[in-house]
Structures are given as C-alpha cells and as structure tokens.
C-alpha cells in the first residue's frame, strides 16, 4: 500500500467540494419532476422525513467511515469497509463504491457535455427567434436522437458534435483530477459552487416573480400556479408507499449517499478533525440548492408559459434542453441570453463538481494499492470512462443509457447503503461508531441519533430495498393489498415494470434478442448489463490482487 500525499487545502474547500459532490443535475431537474409526478406538495413531507431519518444519518456514517479508513491509509471503499471488520467479504461489498461511480460517470459526463455545449450555444444566442419545435429539433439533431426507442437499427446514434463535446468534457475532468484534491477538485468547487448559487438565485427570482404570462386560452399559465401545485401540502400522501419510495429515492440521489464518493473525500480528513458539522453543512447546502433553488426554477417558468396540465404530462429531464431555451426566448434577447448562460452554466457547474467526486474513488484505490501517480491514474480512469460511455452515446435510444442509470445510478446505491449501514451499526458496533461520529465534533450531535442510526435508518433503507425489489403494479397502498391477496389466492405477484426483480428478469416482456436479423432493444440492454457486470468483476479481481499484495507486504514487514 502506497503512502498518499493527497489532502484538502482548507475546511471551506472540503465542504464546498462535498456539497458540489451532492449538488448535481438532479437538484434542478429530478427533484421538481419527482415532486410533480408524486402529487406536488404531497412529496415534501415524506422527503423531509427521509432526509432526517435516512439522509443525515447516512451522511454522518459515510463521513465517519471515510475518516476511519483514511487514517489507516485507505481511501476507497473496498479497504475502508475492510478496515471495519475482519470478514473478507466486506472488501468485495466495497467494490460497489468504485463500480457505481464508474457506471454513473459514463453517462453523466455525456449529459455534462450537453450542458457545456448549451452554455456556449446560449452565449452565441443560437436559440434566438426559435419556436419550441425548432429548439426541440435542435437538441434531437445535436444528440442524434430520433425521439423513440424502437428495435429499428436506424436508431443507432452517431452525433458528431456531441461526441466532440463529450471528449472535451472528459479531458477537462481528467485534467482537473490529475491536479489532485487541493490543486484541482477543491479549486473548482470554490469557483463553481458560489457561481452556481448566484446563477440559481437570479433564475429563481425571475421565475417566482414571473406571474401570469397572459397566454391566450391558458388559464393556468402563471408561475404561481406551478408553485402552488408544487408546495400545496397534502397530508394524505403519508399513507402512500409510492410517494415514500420516490421521496426516499430522491434523498439517495440528491445527497450522493450509497456511492462511495463521500467516504473517499472524507478519507482525506485528519484524525481529530470535525466531521459532524462538516457533514451537516454540506448536506444542508445541498438541501438549500434543491428546495430553495431547484424547486423555484423549472416548474414555475414552464407552468408560466405552457400551463399546469402540459407540465404534469411532460415534466421530465429533457425539458431542460428541449423546452427551457424556448421559454427564455420569451424574455427578449438580452435576458434570454443571460438566463440561458445562467441555466446551463449552473447545470454544468452542478455536473462537473459531481463528476469530479465520482472520479476520486477509483483514483484513491489505484494510488493506494498500486502506487500509481495522479496523472497515470487519471488517464486510465479516462480510458475506462470512454470505453463505458461510448455504448451509452451510440445506443442511447436502444436502452443502454437507461440501463446504466437504473443499475448503477439506482439499484447499486440502495444495495451499498443497506450493506454499509449494517456494517457500521451492527458489525463495527454503534458504540464505536458513535465515538467516530462525535470525535472532534464542532457541534453536539443529538443523542437520539444513536438510536436512529442503529435501528431506524437500517429499517428505513431495507424497507426501501425490499419494496423496490418486489414493487407491485402502480405501487399505491391498495396495489400492495391486492398484490398480497393475489399472492395468497392465486400464488402469483403483479410485478411493476420498474421493480428490481421485474427489470432483472425482463418480466412482463418477451425475451427476444433478434428480430428480422437485427438486434433488439433487449439485446442492447442485456449487453450493457454484461458490460457492467464485467466491470464489477474486473474491479473485484483488482481488489483481490490488492488484498493479496497487502498480505504479502505484511508478512515481509513481520519478518
């Protein structure tokens, strides 16, 4: 194991980097869409409960695990987990903490490159005078997409400029990572996070004060109608498991827990430095960006011009690129340009601070275990990301992109978080764990969190995992009752298409790889699963080799 000379330059830098890790595209695009799709204000209460009972405990646990591993020379999850238990299995569980990041980076860097391109397009006023259809067609042409996912071979995407932008974004990430934590990641966070907040505040003020746009024949074309729908509290949502699942899922994504990035960043914190206040500060900064800024931009602006019904039916990730530039156009050339640069600029900053964090666990692992230098580690990381990313670009509409997102960006997080909370609370032990969380703390951590971390958080996460695994069709409370009734009377289960088991086994679908001699969407999906599995196995083999190397070194040292 090589000695690491990495470290954070300042405490503020660490917190901004950690907050940047958490603040991502999802704060501005996923959160408002999830809220809209789950009953608007109905979503906020389960979201906050999940934050208090699962989000904050996981932040403390991951920071504590990271610092615990880091002071023993481990800066990536396989050996951080391994340092907390004598069982060999844990280092292989820790593989998730590198694998997840590689998988997500592959498609996330591609989206990040769209935001970079669209910032430049906004600056060049490329959207001026365009209709909504033209803005939408421009994106389709840029990303080479056809708008539908079919088995037809014509859907293979070769978007020239999008690939160039992706390569530029990837090289930029690799270059920053090669500069190290204090020389690269921290410097970027110190510039990107304040700018992101300034851009966000500017857009939020514009959106909230938009009011009625007076579009003929549209009675709900008023930004207040969007805010009203998003924030109207509905207490009956508390009995709906679907809303709880969506809210808890959003907390996972938004805080970047269950990924391994927090462990890795925290592994460079010194033995007696605070982690409790740092974790809270970074976590709440993310909540500010999500709840105050994220909830106040896309939905009010979109409802202001398109109406509430349109937004309810069409709210989604692509709205950022296919609709927002057209909506900004309604504000006149100067404000449209400023808003476009602010919007795509903040998305780019949100993206790059997260992608840099996702690159760090792999670098920490190979630097520790194989003694590679920063530049070599960063370049190899870049090559791996390129290999993993190209299928998501070329076969974007063949389901490869969504497969990566589902398995690495959704399922892996829950699996890893379930494992780490059990390791921390039950295997490592809550007494030792509590000491780790509170050592050097600059705030008093409420004692009842000891109980929450030991009992409530594991039950919470395992419930999410179990319900995601076997989710019945539609997932409402009545659907669960019907599902159990069907199980006991007919011996079958009405799987929801997005339940983990239905996805894994392609239930509710015909398993066909070739149709009229051409590979189907299912073929591409299965091939992307194979590629992801090989990536996981490859990382597990590297961890095995590293562990063997460690044992050999330990024997020699004893002699």
């Amino acid at each position, binding site marked *: 194991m090589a000695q690491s000379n990495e*470290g*954070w*330059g*300042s*405490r*503020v*830098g*660490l*917190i901004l980097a950690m907050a940047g890790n958490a603040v991502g595209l999802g704060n501005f695009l996923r959160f408002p869409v999830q809220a809209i799709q789950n009953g608007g*204000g109905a979503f*906020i209460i389960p979201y906050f409960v999940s934050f208090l009972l699962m989000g904050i405990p996981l932040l403390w646990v991951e920071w504590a695990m990271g610092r615990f591993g880091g002071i023993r020379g481990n800066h990536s999850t396989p050996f951080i987990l391994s340092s907390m238990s004598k069982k060999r299995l844990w280092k292989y569980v820790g593989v998730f903490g590198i694998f997840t990041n590689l998988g997500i980076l592959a498609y996330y860097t591609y989206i990040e490159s769209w935001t970079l391109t669209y910032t430049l397009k906004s600056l060049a006023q490329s959207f001026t005078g365009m209709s909504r259809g033209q803005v939408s067609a421009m994106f389709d042409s840029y990303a080479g997409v056809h708008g539908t996912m079919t088995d037809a071979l014509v859907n293979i995407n070769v978007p020239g400029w999008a690939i160039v932008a992706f390569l530029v974004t990837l090289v930029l990430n690799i270059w920053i990572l090669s500069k190290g934590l204090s020389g690269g990641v921290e410097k970027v966070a110190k510039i990107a996070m304040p700018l992101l907040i300034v851009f966000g505040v500017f857009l939020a003020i514009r959106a909230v004060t938009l009011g009625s746009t007076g579009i003929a024949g549209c009675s709900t074309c008023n930004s*207040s*109608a969007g*805010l*009203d729908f*998003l*924030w*109207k*509290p509905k207490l009956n949502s508390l009995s709906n498991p679907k809303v709880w699942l969506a809210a808890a899922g959003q907390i996972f994504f938004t805080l970047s827990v269950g990924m391994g990035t927090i462990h890795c960043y925290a592994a460079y914190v*010194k*033995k*007696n*430095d*605070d982690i409790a*206040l*740092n974790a*809270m*500060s970074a976590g*709440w*900064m993310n*909540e*500010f960006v999500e*709840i*105050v800024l994220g*909830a106040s931009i896309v939905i009010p602006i979109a409802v202001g011009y398109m109406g509430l019904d349109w937004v309810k039916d069409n709210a989604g990730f692509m709205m950022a690129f296919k609709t927002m530039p057209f909506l900004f156009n309604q504000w006149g050339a100067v404000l449209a340009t400023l808003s476009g640069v602010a919007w795509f600029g903040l998305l780019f900053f949100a993206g790059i601070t997260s992608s840099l964090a996702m690159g760090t666990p792999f670098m920490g692992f190979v630097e520790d275990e194989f003694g590679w230098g920063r530049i070599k580690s960063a370049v190899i990381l870049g090559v791996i990301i390129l290999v993993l990313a190209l299928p998501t670009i070329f076969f974007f509409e063949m389901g490869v992109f969504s497969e990566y997102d589902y398995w690495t960006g959704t399922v892996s997080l829950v699996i890893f978080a379930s494992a780490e909370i059990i390791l921390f609370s039950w295997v490592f032990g809550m007494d030792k764990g509590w000491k780790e969380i509170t050592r*050097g703390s*600059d*705030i008093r951590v409420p004692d009842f969190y000891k109980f929450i971390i030991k009992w409530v958080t594991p039950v919470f996460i395992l419930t999410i995992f179990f319900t995601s695994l076997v989710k019945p069709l539609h997932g409402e409370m009545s659907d669960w009752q019907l599902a159990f009734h069907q199980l006991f009377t007919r011996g079958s289960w009405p799987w929801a298409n997005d339940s983990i088991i239905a996805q894994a086994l392609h239930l509710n679908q015909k398993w066909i790889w070739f149709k009229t001699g051409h590979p189907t969407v299912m073929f591409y999906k299965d091939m992307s699963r194979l590629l992801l599995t090989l990536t996981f196995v490859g990382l597990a083999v590297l961890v095995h080799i590293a562990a063997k190397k460690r044992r050999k070194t330990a024997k020699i040292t004893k002699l």
Partner: protein
Amino acid sequence: MNTETLIFMVAVQSVVTIITIYLFVKVLKAPGGSGDNGEEK
C-alpha cells in the same frame, strides 16, 4: 397562489436557508474554518 400554500413554501424555504447559513457560518468560525487545513486539532 393559495395563502396557506404560500406560507408553507416560505416557511420551509426560510428554515432551510437559515439552517444552511447558520451551519456554514459555524464552520467559518470553527477551528480551521476559513483558513488552511494545516494544523490538526
């Protein structure tokens, strides 16, 4: 916009903003807050 909803929104967003600022200021005032991370506690 419904008054009840407006109050709820302003209350939630204010609480989140105040907590965020409070924690960040606390970090700045704590040891190693605004300066280098050189000295260990």
